[in-house]
């Protein structure tokens, strides 16, 4: 067999830990957790948080929740493996070929963030994070092609960083629970005991986060 080398294995475990952390997976599921890797392609943190505040559901998440989601997205971006092998096609009509994923979106997203800062300075003589939520959305909207707003793509295939951030959040278990206001725990290893019961309502968010 093609056994993983020790280096391969360490790299895989680190990347997997980043993925697990980004997904909010804990306990045994993240037994391999290590410090996140540094890819050198992470979008600037302050601007990304300002984007998060403009595009994520602030009422449900609160400032701490937005910060947590953005941190998870940074971790997710750190762990991205460009042109990774994707699952095989099923029931191939043509040639059954190996599929590979997209290139690293980080550099493109970093350039977009830089452009948001430049445009904020030119239009408003302000840092992006100092703009009102509506002004931030206007600038983001101006960068987006019309076809980018619709069904959410997978995060790695999002052309714009704001869409990538939203796609990352809405792909997660937390978003589903917030939508349904119920502890569904999608994709969490939950056991079978409570399977037949209606999911419990979400606990109320602490007042200070509201």
């Amino acid at each position: 067999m093609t056994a993983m080398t020790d280096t391969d294995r360490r790299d895989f475990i680190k990347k997997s830990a980043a993925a697990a952390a980004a997904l909010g997976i804990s306990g045994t599921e993240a037994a391999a957790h290590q410090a996140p890797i540094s890819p050198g392609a992470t979008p600037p943190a302050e601007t990304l948080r300002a984007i998060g505040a403009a595009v994520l559901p602030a009422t449900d998440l609160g400032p701490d929740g937005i910060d947590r989601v953005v941190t998870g997205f940074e971790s997710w971006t750190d762990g991205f493996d460009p042109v990774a092998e994707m699952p095989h096609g099923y029931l191939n009509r043509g040639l059954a070929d190996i599929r590979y994923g997209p290139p690293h979106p980080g550099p493109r997203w970093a350039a977009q963030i830089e452009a948001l800062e430049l445009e904020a300075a030119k239009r408003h003589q302000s840092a992006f994070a100092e703009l009102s939520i509506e002004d931030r959305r206007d600038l983001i909207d101006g960068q987006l092609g019309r076809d980018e707003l619709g069904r959410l793509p997978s995060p790695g295939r999002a052309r714009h960083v704001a869409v990538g951030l939203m796609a990352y959040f809405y792909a997660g278990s937390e978003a589903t629970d917030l939508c349904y206001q119920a502890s569904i725990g999608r994709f969490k290893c939950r056991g079978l005991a409570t399977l037949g019961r209606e999911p419990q309502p979400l606990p109320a968010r602490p007042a200070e986060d509201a």
Partner: protein
Amino acid sequence: MARSARLGRFQRTVESDVIIIGGGISAAMVAEKLAETTSAGIVVVEAGNRIFNLDERFAHRARNMAYGENPWPDDHVPGQTGHGLQSRSMAVGGQALHWGGTTPRFTPEDFRLASMYGIGDDWPFDYDDLEPFYQEAEERIGIAGEQGPDDLDLRSRPYPMPPIPLSYTLERLKEWAEKSGIPFWTNPVAKTSIPYRGRNACTRCDTCSICPTGAKYSPDFSFQALLEAGRIELLERTLVRRLVLENGSDRIDHAVAVNRDAPDETLRLRASMFVLASGFAWSPHLLLLSANSRFPDGLANRSGLVGKYMTGHSSVSAFAEVPERLYPGMYQQHSLLSKRFQRPGPLDRYVRHDLRIWEATSGRQPRLRNDNGDALWGDAVMDDWRRRTQTGAARLRAYYDVLPARNSELVLNPDLTNDWGDPMPRITFRDAAASIALREHTIETIRDTLTHIITAGGGSILSMNDSNIHDHPGGGCRAGNDPASSVVDTWGRTHDHDNLFVVGAPTAVTGGCANGTLTFSAMSLRSAEKIGDELPA
């Protein structure tokens, strides 16, 4: 770059009583049974990698969920591909490494289409012949299931495990669907509802294509146990390129193989019995590759039917709005089943199909633009999503059987060769004239049934579509009693070669109208019983 297409001189010979070519679920069933019932030396040869990585599966699952990456990296053999394959997966464990684990049985009608309905061909054995092997397969694999209505769900003994419980959402969907008067019950699965033979109970991670806990059966578990018990030798990364006859005999003398780690070294694998367990594509492919002067069209191919009658089933699907609040994500892999239309009784015009229902999120996913085309940001995305999830959704799907044409076929494609210069397969599925004539009637009948279920429950149709894919493919070495119209006999023994069996999917006569893996496994165990009779006790 292609290496020499010549087979080269043998650098190493491996000898055994039986050589099993392939490392998927059919091979696992045969190896397990022979290991238990005989003292034979057993060698399993698999072209792909050995992926015994249960301790890494949470990590692979995390990568798959976060980035969509293949949770089974390196589960393929570079260059070993073709047109019309089910999947590129090729590894110890086969495609059942990442299967969904759905394990319905076929019904008696599937084996008697000609006798009962005057279409297609009967199999050389019937449901009653296979029933004990269904039970054996369910026990070896570990199936959790619920006994359905006795007239629809024929069994001689209970499932080895109680069913995976229905989720709250599936309970609601069952009540909703049964307003149509059609009974539904829990789909049987190769997952543990309780601890079973060393596997822990399912923890509902809901990523069954990469089960991180091992609750879902995959054949690597069987091979690992057999290796630990010292009952098999496993040659992974070893590609069998030809089967070669004894001088002056139609018996197989040896297989010619190449170790992918020593690609210029040619292996000779000798045994008194050969079992071809390489699935619907690679089994007929190897027989065709093994053509020689006495069998110029390929081994086991005096009938000319190797690679013919490739089969599977097609489907009609619907998404429905369900008029109550549901919670998708509770266990999206789990489903409801009905065999009501697999056992229809006498018919004026033939149509048979299965029925499955799953939770769904159709039309209920978050979006960034509303129906008016307005961009949604921040709270507006969540508000829009919440508004659209006040009612639920369901997915309904019916597999219907299609009868294969003779020229539904796998051929060698000289324009596509692997690293050793061997032509790769090209598969073209074609339906028999009888199926083509029935297609419109079949689709209309199923659409009416799905519409009835949806509307009886007060729901509405979101979408409905037909697919003429051939899912759960089989055939290519069809079984039969007549050597002129089949490749193998009722036990899977090739008509032309006394010591060569083909097992599992390739021997299927038709594709049935339900997932085929359990049936292929049961057929493999039935073959193993006969194979075992001819090996040292």
